[in-house]
């Protein structure tokens, strides 16, 4: 289990013609990911979801807060001692085209980490090849076909599967999938999502799914949790299905309202919310971060920053002074 409390991160930008500006990527984020669980971070670009994912995977530092992996606070360990913990968390990159070394065959790509693994666990060399084939079968590709090939000979979907197989070589407890399906052709996207779900069920690995496409978060599996991030703050959190069918924060509602309606199959939700203006990172940080764009803002919103509190249901939290469930997602069209 991995928990984080009060994670903050500020990117300092050096002064240039436009003046120095600090970007607060994360403003005190709390999260908890159970063993075998599925958690999704949702938000637009710049909301901090990728930074948070990289921090969790141990690839980025954070300014304050604490991350606890399986009961061990990371702040209590020296950098080198943290590595075995973070090795349990493997990142799957967005772009399967650049994540694989083009000069290595798939066999070579998998062999390197597996050889290391064999040495650590005292296994024989034969195990390496067996395991490579086993992992490729596990991610749904024919080992005989891909092992001898180079990445450019494979389709995007296959490469993404190879990337996932490579992540599995170190027996991770958690996979961090950062926009892992956005570059895959639409007709095959679901198969990668189904694979992540399947790995969760079969191997018990937990999945941290980072995406801007909320609909895909539903396909990672049951009992998934959704965190909606906005400008570095979690504005809504709850079970994926609960948040999608009954969002209470106006930002979540805007995000869901913006998803295209499949006319002919669906009708737009009756209470769609449209932000009053476009995102401007330079908005003052005084009150609620979404206040300037919120159609429902009041005076209080401009002065005070709402924190994440419990809503009507215990597991459904929101950071809004005027929470209200609205039905914004498309409904099935009646033929």
């Amino acid at each position, binding site marked *: 289990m991995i928990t984080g409390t009060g994670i903050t991160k500020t990117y300092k930008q050096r002064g240039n013609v436009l003046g120095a500006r600090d970007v607060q990527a994360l403003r005190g984020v709390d999260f908890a990911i159970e063993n075998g669980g599925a958690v999704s971070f949702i938000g*637009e*670009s710049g909301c901090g979801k990728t930074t948070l994912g990289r921090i969790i995977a141990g690839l980025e530092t954070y300014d304050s807060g604490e991350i606890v992996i399986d009961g061990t606070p990371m702040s209590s360990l020296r950098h080198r001692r943290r590595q075995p913990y973070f090795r349990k968390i493997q990142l799957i990159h967005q772009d399967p085209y650049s994540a694989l070394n083009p000069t290595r065959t798939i066999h070579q790509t998998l062999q390197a980490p597996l050889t290391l693994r064999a040495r650590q666990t005292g296994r024989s060399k034969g195990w390496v090849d067996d395991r490579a084939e086993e992992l490729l079968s596990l991610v749904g590709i024919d080992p005989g076909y891909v092992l001898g090939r180079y990445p450019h000979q494979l*389709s*995007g*979907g*296959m490469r993404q599967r190879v990337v996932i197989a490579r992540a599995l070589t170190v027996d991770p407890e958690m996979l961090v999938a950062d926009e892992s399906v956005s570059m895959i*052709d*639409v*007709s*095959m*996207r*679901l*198969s990668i*999502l*189904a694979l992540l779900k399947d790995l969760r069920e079969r191997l018990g690995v937990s999945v941290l799914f980072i995406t*801007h*496409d*909320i*609909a*895909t978060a*539903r*396909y990672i599996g049951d009992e998934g949790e959704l965190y909606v991030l906005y400008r570095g703050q979690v504005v809504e959190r709850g079970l994926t299905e609960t948040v*999608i*069918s009954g969002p209470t924060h106006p930002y979540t509602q*805007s*995000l*869901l*309202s*913006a*998803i*295209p*309606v*499949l*006319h*002919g*199959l*669906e009708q737009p939700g009756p209470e769609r919310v*449209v*932000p*009053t*203006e*476009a*995102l401007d990172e330079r908005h003052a940080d005084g009150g609620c971060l979404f206040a300037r764009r919120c159609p429902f803002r009041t005076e209080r919103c401009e002065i005070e920053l709402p924190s994440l509190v419990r809503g009507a249901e215990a597991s459904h939290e929101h950071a809004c002074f005027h929470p209200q469930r609205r039905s914004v*997602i*498309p*409904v*099935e*069209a009646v*033929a």
Partner: protein
Amino acid sequence: MTTTASPGSGDLVAGPGASTAPGVRVRDLTVVYKTPLGELPALGGVSLTIEPGTITGIVGESGSGKSTLALSLLNAVQSPGRVKSGSVEIDGLGDVLELAGNDLREARGRHLGYVFQAAQNSLNPLKTVGKQLLDLGRSHGVEDQRALVRDAKELLERMGLDGARVLDSHQHELSGGMRQRVGIMLALVLNAQLVILDEPTTALDMITQATILRIVREVHKERGLTTLLVTHDIGVAAEVTDHLAVMYGGRVVEHGPTMQVLGSPSHPYTRGLIRAIPRLSGDTAEAQALPGRPPTLGTLPTRGCVFRERCPLRMDICETVDPLPLSHDDRIVACHAVERSNSTAEHEEYA
């Protein structure tokens, strides 16, 4: 930002020289790319009729030929690609594939507006938007530069931007959504009546995407355009278009009114594609990826139906004969299985 138009602003923007929306007739268009394996067809005899005034979505996965088709409409297929045969008739222009030199340049811009994918790559980073606008005017022999700037400003303001500020900006000072609107402005400012948008919202955030799509729909209506929207995202096409052409392996496999194509898809590829879309409602277990993967130029079968490898309705005839696009009611479908079931249905009707 609010983009609701004040009454009559549409007429104002349309400006002088606005003509009627053109129709487009693509006939047997074959475009080949030269590769080490020989010339391979990216478009295999595409025929497509776009009615004047419609907003048509061209959807397909990578390698379906949708971008090649869009570029053909501008006669802008570049080496190693080459138009092997066919014609692209556009009302008021004739066959654009016959145009060359100055005539072609005139046609692009004045008649055909093209909005490039993620406009950041199509704007010059060294020049302000205003300077690029004037370049565009000069290359098309616009005499009244002031009027051009005024039109541009009005268009930008219509799309919810501060016109003067945007014209004075370099591309790096604009957000992705703003650049995309600049792209739309540049495509429309010379009063083009046929506008082609190539992946207009890829790389944009959800909320920005929704804004751009609303603008596309409103501008289309106000200026009475014929609009083509090329996208891999069937949701984007569903949101704005009234007609939908689905492409696969260099062919248009289904074409018809959007509501019908989505509501009751005919071609097995369209059916599978719609079932493969992750959606916000409905049973997640029902959604399924299509088996197999889209063909590339190299793996495209040389005869028979291009979709048969992934098709649940595959028959013997699919191995050898490429199905012709046949129209049935408002729909055009290229599939042997659909053809067969349509003809039996008709048979029963007359029986």
